[in-house]
């Protein structure tokens, strides 16, 4: 059985279990699935070409034809929110996937070998930890110019220590348990101990951290776009739309900022709820 299967099977089971007992989780799953659908099919679902100007009146309030209103160039905000989903979501996904993989690898390596390896790994973790994610992202922008790629990679690195610390602590705790000693004495190979016993034991914590990390990554990347350092026009993620709608906000047309903001908040909220509940259920299942 591969790690992926183990992970998929377990996580799916836990989610299923959680959802049957908890309507809030159902709501969160609906939002997450909805956002995922928007990310994949956003362009197709958009009622108008998101970049086409003057599809409606300029800065119009929400109406039947333009449910979220239009922006300062007469573009349909709903279409833009839909089209902006993918760039808003892909960044955080890359950040959490990359940081989870790197962090888990680093944390497990440190806990597994201990001693000098642990010492070096821990120092690397502390070092990265000492540079706040936003600063690392801004530094990356200063070096490589604006755009989402550099901050995304920078955040992926910045998030590594959080995962690595968690996994290192969890792995040390797990490795200290007698069943690990029993497997060792049995002569089970290191790879088998690691991937069949240790990694599955750490997956719930990793999954929970991943959801929390996703939320933070989304907020951080949106903030970077808001600061004008991220997605560059005409590519427009939610952070850019929120920033771009500010003059209209002052002018009494809040929808240009608020609808994308609502989607950021809803997505993060749903992912957080899901992560928290899955953690609770996973913990209960373990005890």
């Amino acid at each position, binding site marked *: 059985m591969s790690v992926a299967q183990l992970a998929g099977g377990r996580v799916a089971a836990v989610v299923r279990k959680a959802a049957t007992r908890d309507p809030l989780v159902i709501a969160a799953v609906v939002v997450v699935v909805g956002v995922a659908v928007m990310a994949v099919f956003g362009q197709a679902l958009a009622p108008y070409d998101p*970049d086409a100007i003057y599809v409606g009146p300029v800065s119009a309030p929400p109406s039947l034809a333009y449910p979220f209103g239009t922006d*300062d160039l007469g573009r349909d905000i709903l279409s833009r929110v839909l089209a902006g989903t993918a760039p808003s979501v892909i960044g955080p996904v890359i950040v959490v996937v990359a940081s989870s993989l790197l962090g888990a690898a680093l944390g497990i390596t440190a806990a597994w070998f201990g001693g000098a390896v642990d010492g070096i790994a821990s120092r690397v973790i502390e070092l990265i930890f000492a540079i706040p994610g936003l600063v690392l992202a801004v530094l990356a922008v200063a070096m490589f110019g604006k755009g989402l790629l550099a901050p995304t990679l920078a955040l992926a690195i910045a998030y590594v220590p959080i995962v690595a610390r968690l996994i290192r602590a969890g792995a040390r705790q797990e490795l200290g348990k007698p069943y690990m000693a029993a497997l060792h004495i049995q002569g089970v190979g290191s790879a088998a101990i690691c991937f069949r016993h240790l990694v599955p034991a750490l997956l719930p914590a990793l999954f929970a951290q991943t959801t929390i990390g996703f939320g933070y990554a989304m907020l951080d990347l949106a903030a970077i776009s808001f600061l004008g350092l991220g997605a560059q026009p005409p590519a427009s993620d939610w952070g850019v739309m929120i920033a*771009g709608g*500010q003059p209209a906000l002052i002018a009494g047309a809040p929808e240009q900022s608020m609808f994308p903001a609502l989607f950021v908040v809803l997505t993060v909220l749903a992912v957080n709820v899901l992560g928290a509940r899955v953690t609770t259920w996973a913990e209960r299942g373990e005890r």
Partner: protein
Amino acid sequence: MRTTRITATVAGAVAALMFLSGCTARDDASPNTAEPVDSSKLVSSLPAATGEVDEVTWALVEGEPSTLDPAGDYSLAIPNLCENLLQISPDFTVEPGVATSAEWVDPVTFVIDLRDDVAFWDGTPLTADDVAFSLERNRVETSAWFPAFVLVDTIEVTGDLQVTVHFTAPDSTFRDAIAGAAGAVLSKAFVEQAGDTFGTSTGGVMCTGPYVFDEWTPGTEIVTSANPDYWGGAPLVGTLTYTFITDGATLANALLAGEVDGAFNVPPASRDNFAGSDSGRLVLGPSTASYSFGPTNSTGAGADPKIRQALSLAIDREQFIATVLHGLGEPQSTFTPPFAWAGMEAADQYTAAYDELAAPELDLEQAKQLVEESGVDTATPLVVAIPAGAKELSQTAAIIQAAGAQIGLTIEIDERQPTDFSQIFFDPAARESIDFVATVGYLDAPGVLGYAQQFLLPAELGGFFNWSGYSNDEVTADLQTARTTLDPAASADAFIAAQQIFAPDQLQVTLASAYQTTFLQNGLTGVTTSVAVYSSPWALHLGSE
């Protein structure tokens, strides 16, 4: 049950957020009034103030200057500090200033006579030495004002208060140029002493203007105060402080909340907010500013006049003005804006010629045909570069993009940081990856030749922005004649002859001219409200009503 109640409450909270976020009724009228403005109602300056004001805070929309050296950066803080030899009036006529007279004594000799009562802030009297030094400073290639001096042979001090400039050829543009920042007067002793720090927050500047430089707190403000010994009379404002607000929304907030007393170039997007303000007023003035885009390469589609003409035909100017400028501008037929010659002797001649030019029109069919005729490969996307952070230009780019899409051209937008963006202007490599650059340009001093020389002449004759390799011997000859003919009428004839040839080629696709926008708190008056603010001490008459 517990969980359902949480669901209900979270759902409720989200609904409340949604309610807040836009489903509320508008608290004022539709925000997109973009009524055109009657251009005859534009105001060049507000009535001079009569009352003193202790302190005025002025926001600089262009942001914090990198230097206060007039040769180094364009900042609206500079004209109140450092005067030019001649003064530009709000209506763009040139008047004596520090120089009582500045005239041609023969076709290649220009004599500048100085006032005898001008002193620097530190009390040292202004001498011809200082003026010669100041002009000489601009004769290096790295100066922003170098082009004005290309025909200068030598600069000579010919008296305590007289400087004589010798030319290699007559230069009809020189007098107007030194009314701009090319003629800024600096203290020789101070500049030499300050060295590299001149103009920086630590080094400061030493000039003769109506306001004295006090302090520059980087990131926060520049504080200046009235020069009590100003030769033209001390200003009524005790302390004039500049803050830096580049973000349009923040600026609007600050102005509407009364945190800032005034600003130039306020974003047109906030027009309705300003118009509805109880605390201050939006004043519209004439300007030379215009929105345009032009080619950056001698190869590729951008260099093809047909493509430029096609794009021009595909862009609805009225819609552009309504959307981007919120009605605060008007269509413009060529890159040289009419206000540039408003104060010149041959103004009528220029106006007549301008009126004969074809006004921009919308014709998609013809545009598509031109694209076809041009034979360019429409599969290759064209790249438009714009400076980052300017909402109006990113809207402009989006509009160009949409226009391109309508006539079968794919256009990409490359938003660049100020440093990267400025690279475009001096580094050919930086231009390679782009086809067009969209900008807002303005002429800070009177004169019609500026754009024409830079865009149309061969590089070695001063065509610094002639990146598309435009070359027309007739135009070149006419423009050279216009510059080297001191007789205004003859010079105008030469320019007009050239303009008739080059205008249709749209070396810059001009989209619209923008009015000068000024927001000022009620109770204050006296500022210049035309484009002359860039080169004249605009706060000299500022004060209370």
